[in-house]
Protein backbone atom coordinates (compact mmCIF):
# COMPACT_ATOMS: atom_id res chain seq x y z
CA UNK A 1 0.00 0.00 0.00
CA UNK A 2 2.71 2.40 1.07
CA UNK A 3 4.91 1.18 -1.76
CA UNK A 4 2.15 1.81 -4.30
CA UNK A 5 1.62 5.27 -2.89
CA UNK A 6 5.35 5.93 -3.04
CA UNK A 7 5.57 4.76 -6.65
CA UNK A 8 2.58 6.89 -7.60
CA UNK A 9 4.13 9.94 -5.96
CA UNK A 10 7.47 9.26 -7.62
CA UNK A 11 5.79 9.30 -11.03
CA UNK A 12 4.24 12.64 -10.12
CA UNK A 13 7.66 13.76 -8.91
CA UNK A 14 9.29 12.86 -12.20
CA UNK A 15 6.69 14.80 -14.17
CA UNK A 16 7.03 17.84 -11.91
CA UNK A 17 10.80 17.40 -11.86
CA UNK A 18 11.03 17.90 -15.62
CA UNK A 19 9.33 21.27 -15.20
CA UNK A 20 11.56 22.11 -12.21
CA UNK A 21 14.56 21.31 -14.37
CA UNK A 22 13.38 23.53 -17.18
CA UNK A 23 12.66 26.28 -14.63
CA UNK A 24 16.29 26.14 -13.52
CA UNK A 25 17.96 26.08 -16.95
CA UNK A 26 17.83 29.87 -17.22
CA UNK A 27 19.58 30.29 -13.87
CA UNK A 28 22.40 27.95 -14.87
CA UNK A 29 22.69 29.46 -18.33
CA UNK A 30 23.13 32.97 -16.91
CA UNK A 31 25.61 31.81 -14.28
CA UNK A 32 27.52 29.71 -16.80
CA UNK A 33 27.98 32.53 -19.30
CA UNK A 34 28.01 35.73 -17.23
CA UNK A 35 29.08 34.32 -13.83
CA UNK A 36 26.17 36.16 -12.28
CA UNK A 37 23.80 34.52 -9.81
CA UNK A 38 20.26 35.68 -10.41
CA UNK A 39 19.00 35.93 -6.84
CA UNK A 40 15.67 37.23 -8.15
CA UNK A 41 15.14 34.06 -10.19
CA UNK A 42 11.84 33.10 -8.56
CA UNK A 43 10.26 36.46 -9.36
CA UNK A 44 10.71 35.80 -13.08
CA UNK A 45 8.95 32.44 -12.67
CA UNK A 46 6.16 34.35 -10.93
CA UNK A 47 5.87 36.71 -13.91
CA UNK A 48 5.38 33.69 -16.18
CA UNK A 49 2.68 32.33 -13.90
CA UNK A 50 0.82 35.64 -14.05
CA UNK A 51 1.11 35.68 -17.85
CA UNK A 52 -0.56 32.25 -17.93
CA UNK A 53 -3.24 33.41 -15.52
CA UNK A 54 -3.90 36.57 -17.49
CA UNK A 55 -4.06 34.80 -20.88
CA UNK A 56 -6.50 32.28 -19.46
CA UNK A 57 -8.76 34.55 -17.41
CA UNK A 58 -8.69 37.81 -19.32
CA UNK A 59 -8.22 36.58 -22.90
CA UNK A 60 -9.85 33.17 -22.47
CA UNK A 61 -6.99 31.46 -24.29
CA UNK A 62 -5.27 28.22 -23.39
CA UNK A 63 -1.94 28.32 -21.52
CA UNK A 64 -0.25 26.99 -24.69
CA UNK A 65 -0.73 30.45 -26.20
CA UNK A 66 0.87 31.91 -23.08
CA UNK A 67 4.13 30.03 -23.75
CA UNK A 68 5.40 32.12 -26.69
CA UNK A 69 4.00 35.25 -25.08
CA UNK A 70 5.95 34.53 -21.88
CA UNK A 71 9.09 33.83 -23.89
CA UNK A 72 8.85 37.21 -25.65
CA UNK A 73 8.07 39.10 -22.43
CA UNK A 74 10.96 37.34 -20.70
CA UNK A 75 13.41 38.13 -23.48
CA UNK A 76 12.31 41.78 -23.41
CA UNK A 77 12.72 41.96 -19.62
CA UNK A 78 16.11 40.31 -19.90
CA UNK A 79 17.34 42.77 -22.53
CA UNK A 80 15.96 45.71 -20.57
CA UNK A 81 17.68 44.66 -17.35
CA UNK A 82 20.89 43.73 -19.11
CA UNK A 83 21.40 46.97 -21.01
CA UNK A 84 20.14 49.26 -18.24
CA UNK A 85 21.87 47.67 -15.24
CA UNK A 86 23.79 44.40 -15.57
CA UNK A 87 26.10 45.66 -18.32
CA UNK A 88 27.41 48.39 -16.03
CA UNK A 89 28.25 45.94 -13.26
CA UNK A 90 30.31 43.33 -15.12
CA UNK A 91 33.51 44.63 -13.51
CA UNK A 92 31.94 45.41 -10.12
CA UNK A 93 32.42 43.19 -7.06
CA UNK A 94 30.10 40.20 -6.75
CA UNK A 95 28.19 41.97 -4.00
CA UNK A 96 26.82 44.43 -6.57
CA UNK A 97 25.31 41.89 -8.96
CA UNK A 98 23.88 39.81 -6.12
CA UNK A 99 22.11 42.81 -4.65
CA UNK A 100 20.98 44.11 -8.02
CA UNK A 101 19.40 40.86 -9.19
CA UNK A 102 17.81 40.52 -5.78
CA UNK A 103 16.34 44.02 -6.07
CA UNK A 104 15.07 43.25 -9.58
CA UNK A 105 13.12 40.37 -8.10
CA UNK A 106 11.67 42.60 -5.40
CA UNK A 107 10.79 45.23 -8.01
CA UNK A 108 8.96 42.68 -10.19
CA UNK A 109 7.02 41.41 -7.18
CA UNK A 110 5.91 44.89 -6.25
CA UNK A 111 4.92 45.81 -9.81
CA UNK A 112 2.86 42.62 -10.16
CA UNK A 113 1.31 43.27 -6.75
CA UNK A 114 0.40 46.77 -7.88
CA UNK A 115 -1.35 45.42 -10.99
CA UNK A 116 -2.93 42.17 -9.75
CA UNK A 117 -3.07 42.52 -5.94
CA UNK A 118 -1.54 40.11 -3.46
CA UNK A 119 -4.26 37.46 -2.96
CA UNK A 120 -3.75 33.87 -4.09
CA UNK A 121 -5.25 33.11 -7.47
CA UNK A 122 -5.42 30.28 -9.91
CA UNK A 123 -7.18 28.98 -13.00
CA UNK A 124 -8.65 25.66 -13.98
CA UNK A 125 -7.86 24.25 -17.39
CA UNK A 126 -10.13 21.22 -17.88
CA UNK A 127 -8.38 18.88 -20.30
CA UNK A 128 -9.09 15.47 -18.82
CA UNK A 129 -6.92 13.00 -16.92
CA UNK A 130 -4.85 9.93 -17.63
CA UNK A 131 -5.33 7.04 -15.20
CA UNK A 132 -2.09 5.10 -14.73
CA UNK A 133 -3.43 2.83 -12.00
CA UNK A 134 -0.85 3.93 -9.46
CA UNK A 135 -1.74 7.57 -9.86
CA UNK A 136 -3.83 9.92 -11.97
CA UNK A 137 -2.13 12.49 -14.18
CA UNK A 138 -4.04 15.37 -15.73
CA UNK A 139 -3.10 15.91 -19.38
CA UNK A 140 -2.10 19.47 -18.51
CA UNK A 141 0.72 18.16 -16.30
CA UNK A 142 1.81 15.68 -18.95
CA UNK A 143 1.87 18.48 -21.47
CA UNK A 144 4.01 20.61 -19.15
CA UNK A 145 6.41 17.71 -18.71
CA UNK A 146 6.71 17.00 -22.44
CA UNK A 147 6.93 20.72 -23.20
CA UNK A 148 9.81 21.11 -20.72
CA UNK A 149 11.72 18.24 -22.23
CA UNK A 150 11.14 19.65 -25.73
CA UNK A 151 12.40 23.10 -24.70
CA UNK A 152 15.48 21.53 -23.07
CA UNK A 153 16.17 19.67 -26.31
CA UNK A 154 15.68 22.81 -28.40
CA UNK A 155 18.14 24.65 -26.19
CA UNK A 156 20.62 21.82 -26.61
CA UNK A 157 20.45 22.06 -30.40
CA UNK A 158 20.55 25.84 -30.32
CA UNK A 159 23.71 25.87 -28.22
CA UNK A 160 25.47 23.10 -30.15
CA UNK A 161 24.30 23.53 -33.73
CA UNK A 162 23.91 27.26 -34.36
CA UNK A 163 26.39 30.05 -34.90
CA UNK A 164 25.08 32.07 -31.96
CA UNK A 165 25.32 29.00 -29.76
CA UNK A 166 28.91 28.44 -30.82
CA UNK A 167 29.76 32.04 -29.98
CA UNK A 168 28.21 31.52 -26.57
CA UNK A 169 30.22 28.38 -25.90
CA UNK A 170 33.40 30.14 -26.95
CA UNK A 171 32.73 32.91 -24.42
CA UNK A 172 32.17 30.33 -21.69
CA UNK A 173 35.44 28.60 -22.54
CA UNK A 174 37.60 31.70 -22.78
CA UNK A 175 36.21 35.21 -22.61
CA UNK A 176 39.34 36.94 -23.86
CA UNK A 177 40.11 34.33 -26.49
CA UNK A 178 36.60 34.67 -27.93
CA UNK A 179 36.98 38.43 -28.08
CA UNK A 180 40.28 38.10 -29.92
CA UNK A 181 38.57 35.86 -32.48
CA UNK A 182 36.00 38.55 -33.18
CA UNK A 183 33.13 37.46 -30.97
CA UNK A 184 31.13 40.41 -29.64
CA UNK A 185 31.23 39.39 -26.01
CA UNK A 186 28.85 42.08 -24.83
CA UNK A 187 26.24 40.93 -27.35
CA UNK A 188 26.70 37.31 -26.31
CA UNK A 189 26.19 38.35 -22.70
CA UNK A 190 23.04 40.28 -23.58
CA UNK A 191 21.68 37.38 -25.60
CA UNK A 192 22.45 34.81 -22.91
CA UNK A 193 20.92 36.93 -20.18
CA UNK A 194 17.79 37.54 -22.28
CA UNK A 195 17.56 33.85 -23.21
CA UNK A 196 18.01 32.80 -19.59
CA UNK A 197 15.26 35.13 -18.38
CA UNK A 198 12.99 34.14 -21.29
CA UNK A 199 13.37 30.44 -20.38
CA UNK A 200 12.63 31.23 -16.74
CA UNK A 201 9.49 33.25 -17.48
CA UNK A 202 8.30 30.51 -19.87
CA UNK A 203 8.79 27.91 -17.17
CA UNK A 204 6.45 29.93 -14.97
CA UNK A 205 3.64 29.22 -17.44
CA UNK A 206 4.34 25.47 -17.29
CA UNK A 207 4.51 25.50 -13.49
CA UNK A 208 0.95 26.87 -13.22
CA UNK A 209 -0.28 23.43 -14.35
CA UNK A 210 0.88 22.14 -10.96
CA UNK A 211 -0.41 24.88 -8.69
CA UNK A 212 -4.19 25.21 -9.05
CA UNK A 213 -4.53 28.12 -6.59
CA UNK A 214 -0.97 29.15 -5.77
CA UNK A 215 -0.37 32.14 -8.03
CA UNK A 216 0.69 35.14 -5.97
CA UNK A 217 3.28 37.93 -6.34
CA UNK A 218 5.39 36.39 -3.58
CA UNK A 219 5.27 32.79 -4.85
CA UNK A 220 8.77 33.11 -6.34
CA UNK A 221 10.80 32.91 -3.11
CA UNK A 222 10.27 29.18 -2.69
CA UNK A 223 11.18 28.56 -6.32
CA UNK A 224 14.39 30.57 -6.00
CA UNK A 225 15.48 28.24 -3.23
CA UNK A 226 14.44 25.11 -5.17
CA UNK A 227 16.16 26.38 -8.29
CA UNK A 228 19.38 26.94 -6.33
CA UNK A 229 19.27 23.37 -5.01
CA UNK A 230 18.63 22.03 -8.51
CA UNK A 231 21.27 24.21 -10.14
CA UNK A 232 23.82 23.15 -7.54
CA UNK A 233 22.85 19.49 -8.08
CA UNK A 234 23.56 19.98 -11.77
CA UNK A 235 26.84 21.79 -11.28
CA UNK A 236 25.53 25.38 -11.46
CA UNK A 237 27.00 26.20 -14.87
CA UNK A 238 25.30 23.69 -17.14
CA UNK A 239 21.69 24.10 -18.30
CA UNK A 240 21.43 20.38 -19.06
CA UNK A 241 22.87 19.51 -15.69
CA UNK A 242 20.09 21.69 -14.31
CA UNK A 243 17.46 19.76 -16.28
CA UNK A 244 18.58 16.41 -14.88
CA UNK A 245 19.01 18.01 -11.47
CA UNK A 246 15.34 18.97 -11.70
CA UNK A 247 14.31 15.36 -12.36
CA UNK A 248 16.32 14.18 -9.36
CA UNK A 249 14.92 16.95 -7.19
CA UNK A 250 11.32 16.17 -8.19
CA UNK A 251 11.84 12.53 -7.21
CA UNK A 252 13.45 13.44 -3.87
CA UNK A 253 10.81 16.03 -3.03
CA UNK A 254 7.83 13.78 -3.68
CA UNK A 255 9.49 10.66 -2.31
CA UNK A 256 10.51 12.34 0.94
CA UNK A 257 7.03 13.84 1.36
CA UNK A 258 5.51 10.36 1.21
CA UNK A 259 8.02 9.08 3.77
CA UNK A 260 7.73 12.08 6.13
CA UNK A 261 3.95 11.64 6.09
CA UNK A 262 4.47 8.23 7.75
CA UNK A 263 6.17 9.77 10.80
CA UNK A 264 3.61 10.71 13.43
CA UNK A 265 3.71 14.17 15.00
CA UNK A 266 5.49 16.04 12.21
CA UNK A 267 4.32 18.27 9.39
CA UNK A 268 5.53 16.56 6.20
CA UNK A 269 5.09 19.59 3.94
CA UNK A 270 7.29 21.85 6.09
CA UNK A 271 9.87 19.10 6.53
CA UNK A 272 10.10 18.64 2.76
CA UNK A 273 10.85 22.35 2.42
CA UNK A 274 13.49 22.05 5.13
CA UNK A 275 15.02 19.05 3.38
CA UNK A 276 15.61 21.03 0.19
CA UNK A 277 17.51 23.66 2.20
CA UNK A 278 19.54 21.03 4.02
CA UNK A 279 20.37 19.38 0.69
CA UNK A 280 21.62 22.70 -0.63
CA UNK A 281 24.06 23.12 2.25
CA UNK A 282 25.29 19.54 2.13
CA UNK A 283 25.90 19.55 -1.63
CA UNK A 284 27.64 22.92 -1.52
CA UNK A 285 29.83 21.63 1.27
CA UNK A 286 30.86 18.30 -0.17
CA UNK A 287 30.75 18.94 -3.92
CA UNK A 288 30.25 22.54 -5.00
CA UNK A 289 30.90 21.47 -8.60
CA UNK A 290 27.71 19.42 -8.67
CA UNK A 291 26.70 15.86 -8.05
CA UNK A 292 25.68 14.99 -11.59
CA UNK A 293 28.77 16.25 -13.34
CA UNK A 294 31.20 13.62 -14.56
CA UNK A 295 34.30 15.33 -13.27
Amino acid at each position, binding site marked *: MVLEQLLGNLIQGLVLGAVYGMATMGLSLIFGVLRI*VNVGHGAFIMVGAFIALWTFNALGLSPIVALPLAFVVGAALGLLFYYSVIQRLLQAPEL*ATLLVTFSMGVLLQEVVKLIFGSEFRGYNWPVGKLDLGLTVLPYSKLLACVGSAAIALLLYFWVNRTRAGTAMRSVVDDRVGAQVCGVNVNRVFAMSFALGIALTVTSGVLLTMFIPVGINPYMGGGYTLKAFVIAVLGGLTSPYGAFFGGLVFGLIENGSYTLFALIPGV*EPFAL*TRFLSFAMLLVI*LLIRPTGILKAK
Partner: protein
Amino acid sequence: MNGSSKYAPLIPVAVVYAALFLVGRYTPGFWQLMATLLFYCALGQAFNIFLGLTGYVDFGYVAFLGIGTYGMALCVSRLADHPGLGWGVIALGFLLALVMATLLSMAVGAVALRLRGAYFAIATVGVNEGFRFLIEGLRIWNGSEGIIFTAQLNQVLGRDAASAVSTYWADVMVLVIAVAAAVVTLLYMRSRIGYALVALREDEDAAKVMGINVTKYKIIAFITSACFAGLIGASSWALKTPYVFPPEVFEIHYTIEAIIIVLLGGAGTLLGPIVGGLIYGISKYYLAVIIPGFQLLIFAPIIIVIIVVFPEGVVGMLKKKTRHTALGRYII
Protein backbone atom coordinates in the same frame (compact mmCIF):
# COMPACT_ATOMS: atom_id res chain seq x y z
CA MET B 1 47.01 58.41 15.18
CA ASN B 2 46.81 59.30 18.87
CA GLY B 3 44.40 57.87 21.40
CA SER B 4 41.80 60.62 21.34
CA SER B 5 41.32 60.91 17.59
CA LYS B 6 41.10 57.15 17.33
CA TYR B 7 37.67 57.31 18.90
CA ALA B 8 36.63 60.69 17.46
CA PRO B 9 34.16 59.10 14.99
CA LEU B 10 32.09 57.98 17.98
CA ILE B 11 31.17 61.62 18.68
CA PRO B 12 28.73 61.99 15.76
CA VAL B 13 27.35 58.53 16.58
CA ALA B 14 26.69 59.57 20.17
CA VAL B 15 25.19 62.91 19.08
CA VAL B 16 22.69 61.29 16.71
CA TYR B 17 21.58 58.61 19.16
CA ALA B 18 21.31 61.10 22.03
CA ALA B 19 19.26 63.41 19.82
CA LEU B 20 16.92 60.57 18.82
CA PHE B 21 16.44 59.62 22.46
CA LEU B 22 15.87 63.17 23.73
CA VAL B 23 13.46 64.13 20.93
CA GLY B 24 11.48 60.95 21.56
CA ARG B 25 11.48 61.38 25.32
CA TYR B 26 10.52 65.03 25.55
CA THR B 27 8.40 65.65 22.45
CA PRO B 28 4.92 64.25 23.05
CA GLY B 29 3.81 61.75 20.42
CA PHE B 30 7.26 61.23 18.92
CA TRP B 31 8.42 58.20 20.88
CA GLN B 32 6.92 55.66 18.45
CA LEU B 33 8.64 57.21 15.42
CA MET B 34 11.95 57.51 17.29
CA ALA B 35 11.67 53.87 18.39
CA THR B 36 11.16 52.82 14.76
CA LEU B 37 14.18 54.85 13.67
CA LEU B 38 16.27 53.35 16.47
CA PHE B 39 15.23 49.88 15.33
CA TYR B 40 16.34 50.56 11.76
CA CYS B 41 19.62 52.14 12.88
CA ALA B 42 20.34 49.18 15.15
CA LEU B 43 19.43 46.69 12.40
CA GLY B 44 21.73 48.45 9.94
CA GLN B 45 24.52 48.78 12.47
CA ALA B 46 24.36 45.06 13.28
CA PHE B 47 24.11 43.93 9.63
CA ASN B 48 26.93 46.25 8.61
CA ILE B 49 29.38 44.40 10.86
CA PHE B 50 29.11 41.46 8.48
CA LEU B 51 28.00 42.82 5.09
CA GLY B 52 29.95 46.04 5.33
CA LEU B 53 33.18 44.73 6.74
CA THR B 54 33.43 41.50 4.73
CA GLY B 55 31.59 42.32 1.49
CA TYR B 56 29.65 39.06 1.76
CA VAL B 57 25.83 39.12 1.48
CA ASP B 58 23.85 37.06 3.96
CA PHE B 59 20.34 36.79 2.52
CA GLY B 60 19.18 34.76 5.51
CA TYR B 61 20.14 37.38 8.10
CA VAL B 62 16.63 37.71 9.54
CA ALA B 63 16.96 34.16 10.93
CA PHE B 64 19.18 35.59 13.68
CA LEU B 65 16.57 38.15 14.69
CA GLY B 66 14.03 35.34 14.68
CA ILE B 67 16.11 33.05 16.86
CA GLY B 68 16.72 35.90 19.32
CA THR B 69 12.98 36.48 19.53
CA TYR B 70 12.55 32.81 20.32
CA GLY B 71 15.25 33.03 23.02
CA MET B 72 13.36 35.70 24.92
CA ALA B 73 9.96 34.06 24.32
CA LEU B 74 11.15 30.68 25.58
CA CYS B 75 12.80 32.15 28.64
CA VAL B 76 9.79 34.21 29.71
CA SER B 77 7.22 31.52 29.00
CA ARG B 78 9.16 28.70 30.70
CA LEU B 79 10.41 30.64 33.75
CA ALA B 80 7.17 32.47 34.52
CA ASP B 81 6.34 30.00 37.29
CA HIS B 82 9.51 30.72 39.22
CA PRO B 83 8.58 33.61 41.48
CA GLY B 84 11.27 35.94 42.73
CA LEU B 85 13.31 35.98 39.53
CA GLY B 86 11.58 39.17 38.36
CA TRP B 87 13.82 41.17 36.06
CA GLY B 88 16.28 38.30 36.16
CA VAL B 89 14.01 36.50 33.68
CA ILE B 90 14.49 39.32 31.17
CA ALA B 91 18.24 39.25 31.69
CA LEU B 92 18.25 35.49 31.19
CA GLY B 93 16.11 36.00 28.09
CA PHE B 94 18.74 38.26 26.55
CA LEU B 95 21.41 35.77 27.52
CA LEU B 96 19.51 32.91 25.89
CA ALA B 97 18.91 35.03 22.78
CA LEU B 98 22.65 35.66 22.61
CA VAL B 99 23.53 32.00 23.09
CA MET B 100 21.00 30.81 20.50
CA ALA B 101 22.08 33.39 17.93
CA THR B 102 25.71 32.37 18.50
CA LEU B 103 24.94 28.68 18.08
CA LEU B 104 22.88 29.20 14.93
CA SER B 105 25.49 31.49 13.39
CA MET B 106 28.23 28.99 14.22
CA ALA B 107 26.24 26.22 12.56
CA VAL B 108 25.44 28.27 9.46
CA GLY B 109 28.87 29.87 9.35
CA ALA B 110 30.69 26.55 9.64
CA VAL B 111 29.09 25.49 6.36
CA ALA B 112 28.49 28.71 4.46
CA LEU B 113 31.70 30.59 5.28
CA ARG B 114 33.78 27.89 3.65
CA LEU B 115 32.20 29.05 0.42
CA ARG B 116 33.20 32.11 -1.54
CA GLY B 117 31.19 35.01 -2.95
CA ALA B 118 28.22 33.83 -4.97
CA TYR B 119 28.27 30.34 -3.46
CA PHE B 120 28.03 31.87 0.00
CA ALA B 121 25.03 33.96 -1.03
CA ILE B 122 23.33 30.88 -2.51
CA ALA B 123 23.89 28.94 0.70
CA THR B 124 22.34 31.67 2.85
CA VAL B 125 19.30 32.37 0.70
CA GLY B 126 17.37 29.59 2.39
CA VAL B 127 18.57 29.89 5.99
CA ASN B 128 15.53 31.78 7.25
CA GLU B 129 13.03 29.64 5.31
CA GLY B 130 14.90 26.44 6.15
CA PHE B 131 14.90 27.24 9.84
CA ARG B 132 11.26 28.26 9.79
CA PHE B 133 10.26 24.98 8.15
CA LEU B 134 12.38 22.99 10.60
CA ILE B 135 10.49 24.59 13.50
CA GLU B 136 7.13 24.05 11.82
CA GLY B 137 7.95 20.59 10.47
CA LEU B 138 9.21 19.02 13.70
CA ARG B 139 6.79 21.13 15.81
CA ILE B 140 9.67 22.52 17.86
CA TRP B 141 8.65 25.24 20.35
CA ASN B 142 4.96 24.85 19.53
CA GLY B 143 5.61 24.62 15.78
CA SER B 144 3.52 26.81 13.53
CA GLU B 145 1.28 27.94 16.41
CA GLY B 146 4.13 29.97 17.85
CA ILE B 147 4.42 31.21 21.41
CA ILE B 148 2.21 33.85 23.00
CA PHE B 149 3.59 35.01 26.33
CA THR B 150 1.74 38.21 27.19
CA ALA B 151 0.26 36.64 30.35
CA GLN B 152 3.61 35.24 31.46
CA LEU B 153 5.32 38.61 30.98
CA ASN B 154 2.66 40.23 33.17
CA GLN B 155 3.11 37.45 35.72
CA VAL B 156 6.88 37.94 35.87
CA LEU B 157 7.04 41.73 36.04
CA GLY B 158 3.59 42.77 37.12
CA ARG B 159 1.14 44.43 34.75
CA ASP B 160 2.46 48.01 35.00
CA ALA B 161 6.11 47.11 34.63
CA ALA B 162 5.33 44.77 31.71
CA SER B 163 3.52 47.53 29.89
CA ALA B 164 6.39 49.95 30.58
CA VAL B 165 8.78 47.39 29.12
CA SER B 166 6.70 47.03 25.94
CA THR B 167 6.23 50.73 25.34
CA TYR B 168 9.50 52.17 26.62
CA TRP B 169 12.28 49.99 28.01
CA ALA B 170 12.40 47.63 25.02
CA ASP B 171 13.16 50.64 22.80
CA VAL B 172 15.78 51.94 25.21
CA MET B 173 17.40 48.52 25.04
CA VAL B 174 17.45 48.77 21.21
CA LEU B 175 19.25 52.10 21.61
CA VAL B 176 21.82 50.47 23.90
CA ILE B 177 22.31 47.65 21.37
CA ALA B 178 22.73 50.14 18.51
CA VAL B 179 25.38 52.09 20.42
CA ALA B 180 27.16 48.89 21.44
CA ALA B 181 27.14 47.69 17.80
CA ALA B 182 28.63 51.02 16.71
CA VAL B 183 31.38 50.78 19.33
CA VAL B 184 32.18 47.21 18.32
CA THR B 185 32.25 48.23 14.65
CA LEU B 186 34.83 50.93 15.40
CA LEU B 187 36.89 48.62 17.61
CA TYR B 188 36.96 46.05 14.81
CA MET B 189 37.84 48.66 12.21
CA ARG B 190 40.75 49.88 14.32
CA SER B 191 42.13 46.44 15.10
CA ARG B 192 43.75 43.47 13.40
CA ILE B 193 40.26 42.15 12.57
CA GLY B 194 39.38 45.24 10.55
CA TYR B 195 42.66 45.33 8.65
CA ALA B 196 42.35 41.63 7.83
CA LEU B 197 38.81 42.17 6.57
CA VAL B 198 39.86 45.10 4.38
CA ALA B 199 42.47 42.85 2.82
CA LEU B 200 39.85 40.15 2.37
CA ARG B 201 37.41 42.58 0.75
CA GLU B 202 39.98 43.85 -1.70
CA ASP B 203 41.42 40.50 -2.74
CA GLU B 204 40.66 37.31 -0.86
CA ASP B 205 43.36 35.24 -2.57
CA ALA B 206 46.07 37.82 -1.97
CA ALA B 207 45.04 38.09 1.69
CA LYS B 208 45.31 34.32 2.05
CA VAL B 209 48.74 34.28 0.42
CA MET B 210 49.87 36.99 2.86
CA GLY B 211 49.12 34.54 5.65
CA ILE B 212 45.86 36.04 6.86
CA ASN B 213 43.46 33.46 8.23
CA VAL B 214 40.50 34.91 6.32
CA THR B 215 38.01 32.26 7.46
CA LYS B 216 38.69 33.09 11.10
CA TYR B 217 38.00 36.80 10.64
CA LYS B 218 34.93 36.14 8.50
CA ILE B 219 33.55 33.92 11.27
CA ILE B 220 34.27 36.57 13.92
CA ALA B 221 32.37 39.21 11.93
CA PHE B 222 29.55 36.77 11.15
CA ILE B 223 28.98 35.70 14.76
CA THR B 224 29.26 39.25 16.12
CA SER B 225 26.73 40.48 13.60
CA ALA B 226 24.39 37.58 14.40
CA CYS B 227 24.63 38.20 18.16
CA PHE B 228 23.51 41.79 17.79
CA ALA B 229 20.66 40.63 15.56
CA GLY B 230 19.59 38.16 18.25
CA LEU B 231 19.53 40.92 20.88
CA ILE B 232 17.52 43.19 18.60
CA GLY B 233 15.01 40.40 18.07
CA ALA B 234 14.80 39.73 21.80
CA SER B 235 14.05 43.35 22.65
CA SER B 236 12.40 44.96 19.66
CA TRP B 237 10.28 41.97 18.68
CA ALA B 238 9.83 39.75 21.73
CA LEU B 239 9.51 42.37 24.47
CA LYS B 240 7.55 44.93 22.43
CA THR B 241 5.00 42.42 21.16
CA PRO B 242 5.03 39.39 23.47
CA TYR B 243 4.35 36.68 20.89
CA VAL B 244 6.35 34.90 18.22
CA PHE B 245 5.06 33.17 15.05
CA PRO B 246 7.53 31.43 12.72
CA PRO B 247 6.28 32.99 9.44
CA GLU B 248 6.57 36.49 10.91
CA VAL B 249 10.01 36.37 12.51
CA PHE B 250 11.64 34.59 9.56
CA GLU B 251 10.19 36.98 6.96
CA ILE B 252 12.83 37.87 4.34
CA HIS B 253 11.41 41.39 4.21
CA TYR B 254 13.63 42.40 7.15
CA THR B 255 16.76 41.19 5.40
CA ILE B 256 15.77 43.41 2.47
CA GLU B 257 15.35 46.38 4.81
CA ALA B 258 18.75 45.73 6.39
CA ILE B 259 20.39 45.62 2.93
CA ILE B 260 18.71 48.89 1.89
CA ILE B 261 19.80 50.67 5.07
CA VAL B 262 23.43 49.56 4.86
CA LEU B 263 23.78 50.34 1.14
CA LEU B 264 22.00 53.68 1.38
CA GLY B 265 24.29 54.89 4.14
CA GLY B 266 27.46 53.26 2.86
CA ALA B 267 28.58 49.68 3.45
CA GLY B 268 31.60 49.31 5.71
CA THR B 269 31.38 52.79 7.21
CA LEU B 270 30.65 53.49 10.86
CA LEU B 271 28.09 56.25 10.31
CA GLY B 272 26.50 54.67 7.23
CA PRO B 273 23.93 52.51 9.01
CA ILE B 274 22.77 55.50 11.08
CA VAL B 275 22.34 57.74 8.05
CA GLY B 276 20.76 54.87 6.10
CA GLY B 277 18.50 53.96 8.99
CA LEU B 278 17.28 57.53 9.39
CA ILE B 279 16.67 58.07 5.67
CA TYR B 280 14.97 54.71 5.28
CA GLY B 281 12.94 54.97 8.49
CA ILE B 282 11.67 58.48 7.86
CA SER B 283 10.85 57.92 4.19
CA LYS B 284 9.16 54.62 4.96
CA TYR B 285 7.11 56.30 7.67
CA TYR B 286 5.83 58.98 5.31
CA LEU B 287 5.48 56.67 2.29
CA ALA B 288 3.28 54.45 4.44
CA VAL B 289 0.93 57.40 4.73
CA ILE B 290 1.05 58.34 1.03
CA ILE B 291 1.05 54.89 -0.60
CA PRO B 292 0.44 52.25 2.06
CA GLY B 293 1.86 48.81 1.26
CA PHE B 294 4.02 49.85 -1.68
CA GLN B 295 7.15 51.20 -0.02
CA LEU B 296 9.26 48.46 -1.60
CA LEU B 297 8.07 49.52 -5.04
CA ILE B 298 9.98 52.74 -4.38
CA PHE B 299 12.94 51.23 -2.54
CA ALA B 300 13.80 48.37 -4.92
CA PRO B 301 14.70 50.70 -7.81
CA ILE B 302 16.53 52.92 -5.33
CA ILE B 303 18.88 50.06 -4.36
CA ILE B 304 19.54 49.37 -8.05
CA VAL B 305 20.33 53.04 -8.69
CA ILE B 306 22.59 53.26 -5.64
CA ILE B 307 24.60 50.22 -6.69
CA VAL B 308 25.00 51.43 -10.27
CA VAL B 309 25.51 55.15 -9.66
CA PHE B 310 27.10 55.56 -6.24
CA PRO B 311 28.00 52.22 -4.68
CA GLU B 312 29.81 53.87 -1.78
CA GLY B 313 26.57 55.27 -0.27
CA VAL B 314 25.95 58.63 1.40
CA VAL B 315 28.60 58.35 4.11
CA GLY B 316 31.08 56.80 1.70
CA MET B 317 30.73 59.89 -0.48
CA LEU B 318 31.02 62.28 2.48
CA LYS B 319 34.07 60.38 3.62
CA LYS B 320 35.77 60.99 0.27
CA LYS B 321 34.80 64.68 0.25
CA THR B 322 35.98 65.37 3.80
CA ARG B 323 39.22 63.43 3.64
CA HIS B 324 42.18 65.58 4.83
CA THR B 325 39.83 68.22 6.25
CA ALA B 326 39.04 69.00 9.86
CA LEU B 327 35.80 67.06 9.56
CA GLY B 328 37.53 64.03 8.13
CA ARG B 329 38.49 62.40 11.37
CA TYR B 330 34.86 62.30 12.56
CA ILE B 331 33.47 60.65 9.45
CA ILE B 332 34.38 57.06 8.73
